[in-house]
């Protein structure tokens, strides 16, 4: 369910490092708990986000949730396709449903590997 090559936060974000940037999104568990996602609010490219602080919102028919920045750094890219098709977070949370690319090198929240995250969600 949760790809082995990714890292995870206890706040239900996934992270992937590549080419000097960190891509992150929300996990399958998070999108399933939220239900149909209908709006996404994300910072602009060039904005700076701070690890552990809210950096956006994901809203479903049922409720709204803050997205917590898993790392500190400058936003290098934003998944603008989500503005029109936020349901991609439901259908492909680890692929087309990514949220932001952030420059590497800043502070980061503690992360878990896939099995650690699995046991974290099984306790909820």
């Amino acid at each position, binding site marked *: 369910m949760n790809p082995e090559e990714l890292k995870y936060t206890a*706040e*239900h*974000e996934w992270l992937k490092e590549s080419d000097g940037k960190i891509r992150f999104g*929300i*996990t399958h*568990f*998070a999108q399933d*708990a*939220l*239900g*149909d996602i*209908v*709006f996404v*609010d994300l910072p602009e490219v060039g904005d700076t986000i701070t690890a552990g602080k809210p950096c956006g919102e*994901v*809203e479903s*028919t*049922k*409720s*709204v*949730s*803050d*997205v*917590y920045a898993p790392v500190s750094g400058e936003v290098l890219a934003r998944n603008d396709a989500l503005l029109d098709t936020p*349901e991609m977070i*439901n259908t492909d949370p680890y692929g087309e449903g990514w949220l932001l690319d952030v420059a590497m090198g800043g502070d980061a929240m503690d992360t878990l590997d896939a099995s650690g995250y699995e046991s974290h969600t099984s306790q*909820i």
Partner: protein
Amino acid sequence: MSPLEPAELSSQRQHELQHTPLHAWHVASGAKMADFAGWEMPIEFPLGTVSEHRSVRAGCGLFDVSHMGLLSIEGQQAVAELNQLLTNDLDRLADRDVQYTLLCDELGGVVDDMLATRLAADRILLVPNAANSVAVFALLQSSLPDATVVDMSADWGLIAVQGPGARSALSGIGLDSEIKYMTATTADYQGREIIISRTGYTGEQGYEVLVPRSLTQQLWEQLLDQPGTTPCGLGARDTLRTEMGYPLHGQDIGASIDPLTAGLSWAVAWETDFRGRNKLQQLRAEGPKHRLCGVLLQGRGVPRPGMKVLRDGEPIGVVTSGTFSPSLRQGIAIALLDPRIQIGDEVDLDVRGRAVQAVVTKPPFVDASPR
């Protein structure tokens, strides 16, 4: 992310929750279950709220609404006595007619809204909301000296069959559904009598079928075997009714939101006596202090109950129900507004500190009709 909201965590407090006859079916089908008015109910099935909503607008959705109350009021004087309590006029009903009506308190607040069906000259069936059923039952028992009030809730299931495909779903299993909007009929199902009403809470053509508890799952599964039928949860029921501007007791009507404020004076028969009449007549003469209206968001965001409606930065009302409209792909709300605000006025919705442009409307938000 913090996807688990308090309302959802309550689904983990399952000990005292009541179960409908379809509870085991819902759990086995992978529905997300949660506490609703003391019942563990399906909020959505694996298809999800938005798809379930669309299936009702385009095909046929099935809802388990067995949690709702079912009260029978019987006796020679039953209709006359009940008519002294309820706001609408039961004398307008012929046998098998259905009427939307309200039970108010002496201050004009709404104890509950419900459908009343006249089964015979001496028998009325009421379907109150799950959360209010016990209170309505107790109030009727103590207020109707010459009527017999029977709480049948535990013995009956209730399945709502809603959408343009509802009629063929019912006729596909041999049930007569050629009846007019807001009327009811009885039918034989597996040797037992069931009651089919042309009623609903979605804005689409549809039916609500009262079926003995022991036969509820059989009927549910038979209807699901019909082409184009989809099981739907309370999430879709809420987005569908909000698109129509139908009030939900406890949010859009209640002790502090009277029928006049809610725009429900069409369900108040002034020529009859009813509980709260004096107070409501006084309110009618003074003019309501607020008015329930629709609010359609122009910008991005989902209205939620309790959010403020602003004009020129000043608060002029509050959202009582709000959701994302799957039909419009926009945020929609029912809101209690200053009576000086007119339909068509431009306002803002305070979405967690962000002002989102919106326009005041008269629901329904969508072009649908249950007739």
